[in-house]
């Protein structure tokens, strides 16, 4: 699903990583800037200074902008920070991806959304009220769960989460991790990549593989930028 070789960006470098179907990989970035840059390269939003990224069998550098966008529509991306559109309520954010890419099939979307809500243990009146809130008025868990549900609602082959668990309580992290495991268990062709800032959550996530990004240059200079 993912194959990266000799990748080098402004903040980090990575010799090699391959994530086949069925894997739940963790990419550990030393800083939030590294995590963000890695996701930009992985999903083809930016091209690296050096190296190759193959996503779902396609070399991103050879694709046109519209082809890369079409490829991203087959993936699920979730981030908690800046991961939602501010002027839309949480439920509108959740439906944005599937409605944009696949049109509105209200019945199937609603059924799938109920399943996702139960997977992450977010049910009842609390969820109903929270879904009407704008992201600015939602808790970190509500934002993370909304971004996570939006990603899974498109039934992606690959789920990419960028620093999704920042600021969440252990119980809230557990619910999202268990939900992701349930999602992946539905089909052997699926894979998930969790880009983490720091490695303190690896024990909770229990990924099938772990890759560390190496900082480029002087860490002190890096941290001052």
């Amino acid at each position, binding site marked *: 699903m993912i194959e990266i070789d000799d990748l080098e960006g*402004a903040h980090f470098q990575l010799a090699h990583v391959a994530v086949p179907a069925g894997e739940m990989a963790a990419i550990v970035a030393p800083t939030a800037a590294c995590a963000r840059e890695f996701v*930009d390269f992985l999903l083809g939003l930016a091209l690296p200074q050096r190296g190759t990224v193959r996503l779902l069998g396609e070399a991103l550098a050879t694709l046109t902008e519209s082809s890369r966008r079409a490829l991203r529509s087959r993936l699920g991306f979730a*981030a908690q920070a800046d991961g939602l559109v501010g002027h839309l309520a949480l439920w509108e954010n959740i439906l944005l991806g599937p*409605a944009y890419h696949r049109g509105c099939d209200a019945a199937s979307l609603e059924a799938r959304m109920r399943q996702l809500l139960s997977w992450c243990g977010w049910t009842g009146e609390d969820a109903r009220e929270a879904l009407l809130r704008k992201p600015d008025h939602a808790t970190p868990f509500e934002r993370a769960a909304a971004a996570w549900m939006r990603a899974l609602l498109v039934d992606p082959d690959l789920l990419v989460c960028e620093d999704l668990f920042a600021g969440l309580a252990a119980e809230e992290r557990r619910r999202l991790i268990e939900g992701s495991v349930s999602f992946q268990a539905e089909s052997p062709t699926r894979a998930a990549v969790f880009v983490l800032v720091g490695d303190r959550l690896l024990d909770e996530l229990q990924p099938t593989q772990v890759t560390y990004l190496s900082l480029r240059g002087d860490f002190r200079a890096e941290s001052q930028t």
Partner: protein
Amino acid sequence: MSTLQGIATPDRTENDRPPGGLDSFLLIVARARDLARPPVQAALWQQVQRGALDLGWLTFVIGSLAGAFTVATIEAGFGLGANLAVRVLTALVLGQLAGFVSALLLVAGPATAATFELGLMRQHGEMRTLRLIGVDPRAYLMLPRVLGFAVSLLVLTFIFQLASAVGGFALAALVTPISFTQQITTLSGSLAPGMLVMTGLRSLLLGAAIGVLVCEHGFSPAFSPARMPQVARQLLSRSLVAIVVVHGGFALLLS
């Protein structure tokens, strides 16, 4: 070469900035098929609601007053008769002032708000998020705004014209000897359908131009909260130029 949070250089990063000018109009035509997507339709409706429906009553009041003042000034002020009063109202208020004032209202309120909204979305990384989930910001944000402002200006101009005729005549009937029915009869005799069609086309074109300016300023990498007053001034001045150019161009076409 500038950097976005030190991460990616623009020449190696997907570009979400509209090309500007005529190219923006061509981009809108090329992306027209995205109107079939439900979120784009919802964004378009929201823009029309913010642009036209929220300003509808204010436009109606201003239109009524403009119509009443025109008829009352010519009839009661100069004593030149109902026929001339209605002809002047048709040529000046319905033909020119309606589009001009409606465009100014649109720029002063919804256009400035939409520019700030786009700029802050970019600042908060929301455009990156849209691209990462495969949503083209030019389809989801630019297309509904350009079309939304075009439709909004068309609707506002029509409301202004309707108000200056109906509301204006009703108010003028209170302060002048000309009856409401007499004014309407005179108007129906002097009103050319071609003029209404031309003002409609002009409103659509001018509204789309305002939408393009909104997107250019909102998508600009130079946007920042500290520069909001400057952005608002630039938007206003460029919109005024667009209003004058489009109105002048149509006046030349008709002459």
